[in-house]
């Protein structure tokens, strides 16, 4: 091998190495793209909800009400809308057999009674008349309509039967199947029925946990950082605290769940499954993150600021509280937001303290049992029903939206308010 050839070989190796580097970055980016595309393509349909508009005859006889007199709210509330609903469904196919009637009923969400009742309560004039009423379709038909269910597989492997599909197609031809924005996804609590399940309860759970976490972690972490950076004597004990904080930041999150379970629940007897306990557990987890960020921004404040204040006769405490801390606040705040974003996405510790319970009410205080958004993702992902897959993806989209929002907020605070010292 002569000199020339060796040089060519070496340059080839150089090219190859650069290619590996580019390929590695490309792979990482590719994964992110695949991942986001997958989540968005499965999730976006969950923001639409399928309704069946069917003619309903609010006949007095069917409701066992007096036809001559306008029913009061109480009368309507007492009326039986189950049988009435069944009778209404039969009008879709007057020749339906017993079994087929049940199938007709299953084309609608089980809340059809309530929906029929509320329609009448909202539109009392329709009493005695035949009107078009919008009813929530069952999740199977919802999935069929969105094209998430293959229709060409044998009937016994399908959730929607041939008969249901026939009726559904007929309704569709008449323009009686409509798809609208799924508001109930944001306003409903969790439900066993995919078409009714919403994220309101888990959202409130997350919100309460994060608020509890913020109100504990931020003040404690800020004060701790101020002490360690400004007041603490340099001795073994403060070194020990420092080592402790650094290690705590790298402890797996599930260990904090065990701490919450073993101390907060078992020793202090705080109520299980509540955002209060979840928030305290998360605050212990985010504490080191915020302390480290706060210390870094306190360190970045130049000593000349402190010296100037001290020279003007301010006490050490006044110097710290009036000058150092306000200057370090933007950095601390952006570190806090990043810590909270981490806490918002945390699942494992919350599962251990029981925030994984099925909650079908919207919690009003941090003391009520609740789930949180990531736990909701876990609960729905473990559920076998096809209708939940799009819900999981949609829930992930909501969660990612908040995370991006928080991280951008942290960036903004950092760039806008942080002083750059030269």
């Amino acid at each position, binding site marked *: 091998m002569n000199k020339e050839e060796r040089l060519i070989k070496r340059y080839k190796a150089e090219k190859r190495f650069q290619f590996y580097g580019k390929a590695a970055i490309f792979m990482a980016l590719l994964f992110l793209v695949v991942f986001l595309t997958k989540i968005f393509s499965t999730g976006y349909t969950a923001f639409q909800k399928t309704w069946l508009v069917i003619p309903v005859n609010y006949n007095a006889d069917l409701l066992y009400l007096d036809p001559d007199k306008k029913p009061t709210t109480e009368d309507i509330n007492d009326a039986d809308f189950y049988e009435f609903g069944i009778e209404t469904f039969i009008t879709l196919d007057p020749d339906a057999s017993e079994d087929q009637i049940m199938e007709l009923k299953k084309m609608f969400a089980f809340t059809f009674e309530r929906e029929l009742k509320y329609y009448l309560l909202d539109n009392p004039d329709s009493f005695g008349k035949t009107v078009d009423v919008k009813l929530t379709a069952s999740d199977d038909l919802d999935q069929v309509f969105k094209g998430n269910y293959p229709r060409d597989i044998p009937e016994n492997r399908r959730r929607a039967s041939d008969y249901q599909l026939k009726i559904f197609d007929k309704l569709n031809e008449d323009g009686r199947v409509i798809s609208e924005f799924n508001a109930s996804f944001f306003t409903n609590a969790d439900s066993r029925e995919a078409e009714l399940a919403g994220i309101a309860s888990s959202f409130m759970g997350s919100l309460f946990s994060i608020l509890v976490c913020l109100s504990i972690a931020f003040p404690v972490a800020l004060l701790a950082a101020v002490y360690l950076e400004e007041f603490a004597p340099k001795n073994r004990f403060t070194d020990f605290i420092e080592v402790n904080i650094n290690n705590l930041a790298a402890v*797996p999150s599930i260990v904090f769940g065990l701490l919450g*379970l073993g101390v907060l629940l078992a020793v202090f007897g705080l109520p299980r499954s509540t955002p209060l306990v979840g928030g305290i557990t998360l605050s212990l987890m985010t504490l080191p993150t915020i302390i480290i960020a706060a210390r870094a921004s306190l360190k970045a404040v130049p000593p000349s600021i402190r010296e100037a204040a001290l020279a003007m006769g301010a*006490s050490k405490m006044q110097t710290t509280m009036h000058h150092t801390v306000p200057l370090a606040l933007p950095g601390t705040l952006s570190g806090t937001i990043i810590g909270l974003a981490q806490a918002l996405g945390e699942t494992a510790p919350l*599962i251990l303290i029981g925030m994984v319970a099925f909650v079908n009410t919207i919690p009003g205080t941090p003391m009520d049992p609740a789930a949180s958004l990531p736990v909701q993702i876990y609960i729905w992902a473990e559920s076998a029903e096809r209708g939940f897959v799009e819900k999981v993806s949609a829930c992930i989209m909501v969660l990612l939206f908040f995370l991006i929002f928080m991280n951008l907020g942290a960036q903004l605070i950092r760039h806008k308010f942080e002083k750059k010292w030269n």
Partner: protein
Amino acid sequence: MNSVIFLTIVLLALSSYFFGRKKAILIQSNKRLTALPKFYGYYLAIWCGAPAFLLYALWSIFEPSIVRFFILSDYSSQGLLEGELNLFYEKVKSLSRNQYSGELTAELQRSAEKYLNFRDIAKWSKVVIVLSLLIASTGYAYTKISNNTKTREPVEIFLKGVFFLSSLAAILTTIGIIFSLLFQTIEFFQVISLFDFVFGMHWYPAKAFVRDASEALDPSMYSDTFGAVPIFAGTFFIALIAMCVAIPIGLLSGIYMAEYASKRLRQYAKPVIEILAGIPTVVYGFFAALTVGPFLKDLGLSLGLEVSAESALAAGGVMGIMIIPFISSLSDDVITSVPQNLRDGSYAMGATKSETIKRVIFPAALPGIVGSILLGVSRAIGETMIVVMASGLAANLTLNPLESTSTITAQIVVILIGDQQFGDPKTQAAFALGLSLFIVTLVLNIVALSVVKKYREKYE
């Protein structure tokens, strides 16, 4: 009632601030103040709020257990078990709230009345004692202010004390972790021998289902149930798969970012890759279970391989992707901090850029890179949701990445999801696993952090 007391304390403390400041301004008219008037306010407010609040907090913490002690002291001579006493006490409490629906006994009724009575006494004595302490301490502080004593120093010492206590929070958390893990683990090892746990080859915690307390203490129930070898093996195996994905991609992209990338690419690609670290792990878990698992299964089928839908490969691979940014960012930092003169020397000898990286920069940065990899390993070992959702929950002892295995973290979740009974070896086993996880990650972190620190010192 509790919130009323709390709010009263807060309001009184706030108003005493203004009161103290006003007093200081009054004093000012004929005497020289020792500090700014607001310090007189702070002084009074602290003396008003702090002692009362401390007493209030301690009282609230200890009241339930003291009431419980008094109620149950009537029955302590009957030789009841701890569990039965607990049950009885819960019944008494629900009866006192009128929510009890079980069988009513005279004993129960008597205790419920006594309970309500005690709660009433406790409530009112709490109000009286807390408020009288508040008045006494405020009065003391007021006389001090009136005598125009120093106020700034005590206020600052108090604040410093609060700061110091806050800095103890991290230590308290560590102590809490160790205490809660150790306490349960010791109880666990009283039933199962340490040897069986560390060297046992079978892990079937579901087998350890006990019907009553007498059974729970029988060690023969648990032979061959809590052998943690399959779990430990699974943990390290999945971490290994993850590192096989994360190290090449992370390291190469870190090197490229540090040495080759243009400023623009760095500016945009770096934060985008770091998004990978910010995605919640439950989302990765869902992705692994929904997309990667079935994909690998289909791929395996087309190649004639038997791939489990919940394979170690799916979980480990996705976990590896999650760890990429940790390794790439850290190794990027480490490589950038290698002094420029090392590079210049190598270029001057005629080496190409890649030769310089491979022969000069990489060896120089190796300790830091090893540190970043160790931190990545510690992440992988502590990762929970991906494994729970994408790999199996049954603890197989296998080295086949296409089968399902389980990890320490996944088993903790499996055991503790739903209702837990304290004192049950199954629950305690989760804490024993947690302790081993804590120790392993702690050692990894300490080693990694000290390696990185030593490295930094070398070039600074």
